[in-house]
C-alpha cells in the first residue's frame, strides 16, 4: 500500500518536473532570442554604409561580453552572399572568416530571420541571423548576433535545483505523513491480530477492546467462530462424560452378575469389566484436564466449596466436627475442581480423624498471587515414609486400583494443572496436614 502511494507520488513529481523544466527552458530560449533580436536591431541602426559602399559599424552595445573573447557572445555583419566574411564584427571574435552555424540548413523565416546554433568562441551559442538591406544599399546584408547558451542552461539548472530541493522535501514529507497515516490506519488491525493471538493461545476467550467500525463485523465473526469452536469442544467433552456415565449402569449390572458364574469365568470377566471402567475414567479424566487448561478465567470461592463438602461430610460423619477458618478468598480455578480437591482431601482426613477435621485458607506468604488451603486431622497421621509413598503414587488413574492415597495423588495432579502444588506434613493436631497451593483470582502471579 505504502509502496503504491509513494510510487504514484514519484511518477507525478517526475511528470511535473519535466513540464516545469520544459517551461523554464522555453522561456529562457525566448528570452535569449529576444535579447539577441534587440541587439540585432541595435547593430542594424548603428551600421553605416559609406559612399564607396563599404560598411562601418561601431555600435555601442552596453554589454561588455561582446568585448571579451571566447565569451560566447559576438556579433558580425556580412553580406547574405558571403556569410562567412565579416564586414564588421565585435571585439570578441577575430579573423577574416566567420564559421558558419552548426545547422546551416535551417531556412530563414518570413521576416528573414533564423535562430541557429554555433560554436565560434568554443562556447555553445545561440545565433540570430537576420538578412536586411541597410541604408540605400542594394546589397543584402546579414546581421549576426550570438549569445552564450549557458544563460539557458543556467536557468534550467537553477530551476532544476530548486525543483529537486522542493520535490525531495515533498517526497520525504509525504512519505513520513503517509507512513504515519497508514500505520495509524492499520493500528486497529495490528491490535486485532494481537487479540486474535491471545484467543488462539487460550489467554482470552474472545477478541476484546474497541475496534473501528470497519473491522467490527470481522471481529464479531471471529468471536462467533471462537464461541462456536468452544461450544463444539464443550459438547464433545460433555458427550464423553455422558457416554462414560451412561456405561456405568450396565457395568454395575454386569459386575454383579459375575457372582453367579463359576469362579474362573467370573474372574476373567471382572478383570475385563474393571479394565473398561479404568479406560472410561482415563478418558473422562483427559476430557476434564482439557477443560481445565481453558478454565483460566473461572473463579471459585473456597468458603462456598468447603461449605458444600462439609454438608456432605457432616451428614455421613455425624460424630466428627468440621471447622473452617480464613478470609473469603476467590481462586482462579473451576468450582467443580475446587470441590473435588477439598472433598477428596477432607474425606481422606475424616477417614483418619478421631474427632476433628480443620480447613484453613490464607494468602500464600512465599508466592504472591497464590493462596494456601490447609486441611488437618487429629488422627494418627502418616510417617515420613508413608507420606512419600502417597505422593509418589502419581500414576495415572487407569494404572492404579482404588484405595487410600490414590485420591491424594489425583489432587496433586489437579493442583499442578492450575500451576499449584500439594504438600504433606505432620499436623499440630496429631494427624496429617495437607497443604494445597492454588492461584488466587484476579491476582498477578509472581514468576
Amino acid at each position, binding site marked *: 500500500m505504502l509502496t503504491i502511494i509513494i510510487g504514484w507520488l514519484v511518477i507525478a513529481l517526475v511528470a511535473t518536473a519535466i513540464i516545469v523544466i520544459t517551461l523554464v527552458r522555453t522561456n529562457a530560449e525566448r528570452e535569449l532570442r529576444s535579447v539577441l533580436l534587440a541587439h540585432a536591431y541595435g547593430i542594424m541602426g548603428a551600421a553605416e554604409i559609406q559612399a564607396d559602399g563599404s560598411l562601418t559599424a561601431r555600435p555601442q552595445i552596453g554589454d561588455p561580453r561582446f568585448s571579451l573573447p571566447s565569451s560566447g557572445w559576438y556579433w558580425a555583419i556580412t553580406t547574405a552572399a558571403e556569410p562567412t566574411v565579416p564586414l564588421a564584427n565585435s571585439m570578441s571574435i577575430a579573423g577574416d572568416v566567420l564559421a558558419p552555424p552548426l545547422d546551416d540548413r535551417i531556412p530563414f523565416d518570413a521576416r528573414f530571420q533564423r535562430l541557429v546554433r554555433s560554436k565560434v568562441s568554443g562556447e555553445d551559442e545561440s545565433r540570430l541571423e537576420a538578412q536586411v538591406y541597410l541604408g540605400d544599399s542594394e546589397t543584402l546584408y546579414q546581421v549576426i548576433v550570438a549569445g552564450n547558451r549557458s544563460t539557458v542552461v543556467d536557468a534550467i539548472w537553477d530551476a532544476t535545483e530548486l525543483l529537486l530541493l522542493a520535490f525531495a522535501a515533498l517526497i520525504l514529507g509525504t512519505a513520513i505523513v503517509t507512513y504515519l497515516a497508514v500505520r495509524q490506519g492499520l493500528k486497529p488491525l495490528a491490535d486485532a491480530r494481537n487479540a486474535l493471538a491471545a484467543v488462539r493461545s487460550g489467554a482470552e476467550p474472545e477478541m476484546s477492546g474497541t475496534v473501528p467500525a470497519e473491522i467490527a463485523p470481522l471481529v464479531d465473526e471471529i468471536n462467533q467462530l471462537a464461541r462456536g469452536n468452544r461450544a463444539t469442544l464443550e459438547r464433545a467433552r460433555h458427550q464423553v462424560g455422558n457416554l462414560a*456415565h*451412561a456405561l*456405568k*449402569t*450396565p*457395568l*454395575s*449390572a454386569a*459386575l*454383579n*452378575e459375575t457372582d453367579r458364574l463359576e469362579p474362573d469365568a467370573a474372574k476373567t470377566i471382572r478383570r475385563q*469389566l474393571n479394565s473398561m*471402567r479404568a479406560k472410561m475414567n482415563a478418558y473422562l479424566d483427559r476430557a476434564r484436564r482439557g477443560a481445565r487448561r481453558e478454565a483460566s478465567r473461572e473463579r471459585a470461592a473456597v468458603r462456598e466449596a468447603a461449605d*458444600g*463438602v462439609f*454438608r*456432605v461430610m457432616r*451428614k*455421613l460423619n*455425624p460424630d466428627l466436627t468440621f471447622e473452617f477458618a480464613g478470609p473469603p478468598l476467590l481462586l482462579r480455578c473451576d*468450582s*467443580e475442581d475446587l*470441590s*473435588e480437591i*477439598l*472433598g*477428596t482431601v477432607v474425606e481422606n482426613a475424616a477417614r483418619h480423624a478421631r474427632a476433628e477435621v480443620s480447613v484453613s485458607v490464607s494468602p500464600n506468604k512465599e508466592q504472591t498471587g497464590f493462596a494456601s488451603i490447609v486441611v488437618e486431622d487429629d488422627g494418627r497421621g502418616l510417617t515420613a515414609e508413608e507420606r512419600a509413598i502417597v505422593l509418589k503414587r502419581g500414576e495415572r488413574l487407569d494404572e492404579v486400583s482404588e484405595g487410600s492415597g490414590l485420591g491424594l495423588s489425583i489432587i496433586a495432579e489437579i493442583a499442578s494443572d492450575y500451576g499449584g502444588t500439594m504438600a504433606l506434613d505432620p499436623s499440630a493436631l496429631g494427624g496429617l496436614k495437607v497443604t494445597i497451593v492454588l492461584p488466587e483470582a484476579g491476582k498477578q502471579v509472581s514468576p
Partner: protein
Amino acid sequence: MRVLVVEDDPDLRRQLSETLAEAGYAVDTAADGEEGHFLGDTEPYDAVVLDIGLPGMDGIAVLEAWRANERLMPVLLLTARDRWSDKVSAIDAGADDYVTKPFHTEEVLARLRALIRRAAGHASSTLEIGAVSLDTVKAAVTLDGKPVKLTSLELRLLSYLMHHKGKVVSRTELIEHLYDQDFDRDSNTIEVFVGRLRKKLFPELIETVRGLGYRV
C-alpha cells in the same frame, strides 16, 4: 423392614431387589421416576435406594419432591457421577448417603443397613434386648449366645420391633413394613408371627398393648 428400589435398568433392579430380599427386607421396585415418586410418597418405607438417572423424573427431582412433602425416610442415592460437586448436590437434595456406579450390590446393602440403623438412632450394628441379640449385618439372631433359626418374616418382624425399641407399634404399621406391595396381607398373620417369636425366644420379649399394638 420394607425398602423401595427405584432403578430403570431391569438387570440392576433385579440384582438389587434379590440382594435386599435375601438380606430379609421386603422389597418394592419402581422402574421410573414417576412410579418411584408415587410409591415413596404413599407407602411407608424404612429406606429407599434411588437411582439419579431415571427416565421421566430424575432421582434428584423425586427426592426433592419427597422431602418437600415431609417424606423423611433414609434415601441412598445411586449415581454414575462421582465428582464431589455431584455428591454435594445429592446431599443438598436430601439424600442420606450415595453409592457411585459401578458398585457391588453388597455395598448397597451394607450402606442401607447403616442408614436404617442410624435413622432408628442405633450406633451399633448389633441390637440387643435382654438375652436376645440381632446382628443387622449378618441378619442373625442369638438367644444367650446361641443362634436361633427364624423365617424371613419372623426376622423382619423382630428386626422392626427391635429397631423401634420402647415404642408401641400398631398392627397396621407392622403390616405396612413387613410386606411388599404385592403381598396378600392378612392382619391375623401378625399375631401368628408374634406368637412364634415368643415361643422361639422368650414370652416377655414382645409385650401386647391392648387396642394399640406391640412393644419390645
